[in-house]
């Protein structure tokens, strides 16, 4: 008999510390304060420079606020969809990484490493040019607009990072859990879904949320490929206002501020969870 087949337990003998699988970027409160200060100071300076006939920078921001915010909502939508798609596929990849079948593990490993070690912008271009702009299915033509391609592009690194998070969390569960489940006649699938993964949840949540912050911030890369998200709109607004250089800092500062206001609470929550789980583990 092949012991590897009968003993999935032996395949996971190591108990690894769970390292964040990517460099952790931490937003701090002072980042937001600094940005806010830039917006205010730059706006003030711009008022001093500009004549009375021109709209003040605050005025420009107010005027274009609905458009800019709609762009920001688009960024959030892209990030949420990329995160959802990436998480579902990444979970499958992570489960494949601990499969009992060697070729399945190898495939998962190769895919994960490839997409984890590629620059996000390159993956975005990759998705832009390799995914067709429409898709024919049973005579029905489903269009693939750029923003959907962007979602796919961002979901690739998410997928790879989620795969790593899932694999690490599963490996961190002691072998005794597998053994006692086996001895109670649980199948491998039941053990995974009822016993192992629920215990992984709290280990996975903080790195997963951190990943979400990163994805949200990365969505501005979509401007490079022409998706009308906030950064694209900001530069269009700037052009529409005559390209006045004194508007650059306030407009981009406003964009920064939007991201900060959205991501900072997520980051705080992540750290609170991390701390709580560390205490309880």
């Amino acid at each position, binding site marked *: 008999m*092949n012991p590897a087949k009968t003993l999935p337990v032996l395949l996971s003998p190591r108990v690894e510390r769970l390292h964040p699988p990517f460099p952790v970027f931490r937003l701090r409160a002072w980042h937001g304060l600094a940005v806010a200060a830039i917006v205010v100071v730059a706006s003030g300076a711009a008022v001093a420079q500009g004549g009375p006939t021109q709209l003040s920078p605050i005025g420009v921001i107010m005027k274009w606020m609905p458009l800019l915010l709609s762009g920001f909502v688009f960024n959030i939508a892209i990030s949420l969809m990329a995160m959802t798609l990436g998480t579902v596929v990444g979970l499958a990849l992570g489960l494949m990484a601990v499969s009992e079948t060697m070729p399945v593990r190898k495939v998962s490993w190769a895919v994960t490493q490839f997409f984890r070690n590629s620059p996000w912008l390159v993956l975005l271009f990759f998705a832009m040019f390799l995914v067709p702009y429409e898709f024919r299915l049973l005579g029905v033509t489903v269009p693939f607009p750029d923003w959907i391609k962007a979602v796919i592009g961002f979901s690739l690194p998410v997928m790879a990072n989620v795969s790593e998070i899932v694999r690490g969390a599963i490996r961190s569960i002691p072998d005794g859990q597998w053994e006692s489940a086996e001895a109670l006649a649980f199948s491998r699938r039941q053990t995974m879904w009822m016993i192992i993964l629920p215990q992984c949840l709290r280990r996975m949540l903080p790195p997963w949320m951190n990943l979400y912050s990163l994805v949200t911030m990365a969505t501005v890369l979509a401007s490079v490929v022409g998706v009308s998200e906030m950064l694209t709109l900001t530069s269009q607004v700037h052009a529409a206002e005559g390209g006045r250089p004194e508007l650059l800092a306030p407009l981009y500062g406003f964009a920064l501020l939007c991201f900060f206001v959205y991501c900072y609470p997520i980051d705080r929550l992540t750290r609170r969870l991390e701390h709580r789980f560390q205490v309880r583990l």
Partner: protein
Amino acid sequence: MAPAEQPAWTPDQPIVRLRDVRKSFGSLEVLKGITMDVAKGEAICIIGPSGSGKSTLIRCINALVAIDEGSILVEGQEVNDPKLDKLALRRKVGMVFQQYNLFPHKTALQNVMMAPVHVLKQDRREVEDRARALMRKVRLEGKEDAYPGELSGGQQQRVAIARSLAMRPDIMLFDEVTAALDPETVKEVLQTIRQLVEDGLTCLIVTHEMGFAREVADHVYFTDRGVIVEHGPPRDILSNPREERTKAFLEQVL
């Protein structure tokens, strides 16, 4: 009639029957031809120095470890068979580990209920009644809703025993279940096992508690370096061992 067909098992035959069982991990031969018979309702204790292969031996019986050679019959069913239905075997054979291995995200009662509900697909309410009765049997009434992390080692180990019993096994395997416990809590766990033996459940117990072995075992096996050095009733093995190795071991632990 197919030649491979095994005659139906009857309770007068050994419920566990090992013949020349061999197992190696890589180049390390851990079991070097183990033969033993366990009758239904019997309690046997396996003693021996650490590393002698005791854990491996009892793990073979519920197919947690696949053997290389030999035969293991559990209720007449061959365990060393690639076509073995492992899950069916494990429904008949319960096992308790040194490290309890309770599921930390479930309460004590849920730990006990999980396998009958999800593996045997039994009715949840009926299982709950039985689980509560088992919690009383292991004297943990009132701890049903506690999480494993909130229980002492001895309490966790008794929940682990109840969890195994909830599957209504015919055979129970105990692998040094008191080795990780404080001396005060060892007694309560041994008391629980003693009760099972008195109820007539077949028990294979790996233990370092010689006093306990003397009291409850029908038969004691002394193992060393992968072989059974000698075996017999506890008063022979524990009080008048014939083999030098047994004497040396007993002197060391007593």
